[in-house]
């Protein structure tokens, strides 16, 4: 009987947790925010999540390109096709690996920076104080950042 109770309790808790996460995601995607009020935040975040992520993405791209070129050269030279090395590296890197590497590094760097920022706001009760000021933190804090990250990642 106890095992059954515990199973029921855990299931309800898990479902509630999934429900909360889904509500947050929906709020982040569809949360309508005031573009004029969010504009200074947009500019700051474009710099923080976009421009500051460029360096790490460029450096990673450079090293991946160098590795591809080195390994590709040792193989292609056996067939006398070393002339194709340039197009191969550039096409593989820009068309195929570029988006993947960018997405992974962007998620790692910008995602963790945003998580830390929002986490700090939560820990210092800034989000609670927003709620008490009758300002929805999902619309004011999460939705603009989510929209902006999607935009920066696309471009």
């Amino acid at each position: 009987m106890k095992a059954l109770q515990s199973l029921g309790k855990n299931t309800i808790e898990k479902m509630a947790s999934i429900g909360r996460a889904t509500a947050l995601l929906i709020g982040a995607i569809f949360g309508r925010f005031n573009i004029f009020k969010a504009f200074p935040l947009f500019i700051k975040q474009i710099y923080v999540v976009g421009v500051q992520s460029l360096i790490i993405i460029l450096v990673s791209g450079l090293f991946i390109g160098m590795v591809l070129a080195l390994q590709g050269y040792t193989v292609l030279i056996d067939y006398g096709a070393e002339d194709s090395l340039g197009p191969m590296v550039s096409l593989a890197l820009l068309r195929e690996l570029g988006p993947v590497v960018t997405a992974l590094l962007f998620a790692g760097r910008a995602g963790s920076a945003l998580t830390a920022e929002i986490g700090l706001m939560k820990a210092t009760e800034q989000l609670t104080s927003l709620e008490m000021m009758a300002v929805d933190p999902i619309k004011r804090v999460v939705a603009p950042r989510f929209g902006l990250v999607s935009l920066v990642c696309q471009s």
Partner: protein
Amino acid sequence: MTKNLSDSIHQQEALVELKNVTFSRGDRVIYDDISLKFPKGKITAIMGPSGIGKTTMLRLIGGQLMPDTGDILVAGSNIPKLSRSALYKVREKMSMLFQSGALFTDMTVFDNVAFPIREHTTLPEDVVRTMVLLKLEAVGLRGARDLMPAELSGGMARRAALARSIALDPDLIMFDEPFVGQDPISMGVLVRLIRDLNSSLNLTSIIVSHDVKEVMEIADYLYIMADKRVIGHGTTEELLESDSELVQQFLRGEADGPVPFHFAADSLQQDIMMGSK
């Protein structure tokens, strides 16, 4: 005489009222069927030992937590039954001063105070500026308007947060441990500010604290909570004369009494003898 005063305060129109509220976190019951009244235009304090859920009560009143049962009435609205938009509407007329101040770290003091005005009104920027400067003047921080929160001392941060919380002239303001970690001068400044703002703006204030001396100095009515319920309430004079041992132990800060100094355990002799076996 004091009894009459207490009755008259308690019978005044209440801005906030908790009726038979029960609240628990998991299996742990925090409040067991409690009822409290916070009269309009008065400073009411909630005191009690750490960990009995004083801050939780403010969160219940603010609608951030929902009680298991019971009603929480704020200006006639029953908070647990309100829709999200109606709750946000009620929150526009209430304000909360957090223990940490909770200033937005990426904005100056000026922008922090201007934030609620800009969010909820469409006033032109020069009017906003005047309003913010007046609020900052009231807390003595007009000269610190361009500083960032990280550049403020603890007392200044709390005063800046106080200016922000009165920016929209709320009806109700809730103070969560406003005197914690303050030096005597900052403490005196805060006590004076809370008292002056309450009378000049005709606010209803709820103070949650365990700084007995300061709270008794400014509160019109006090509730002392322990063991999931209200163990005593009344004016300062009534509580000082209370015959409840628990109330007296709390007010006098005695180490031993109904709340024991020792955590429940076997006798020391028994424990020592067990160790030698």
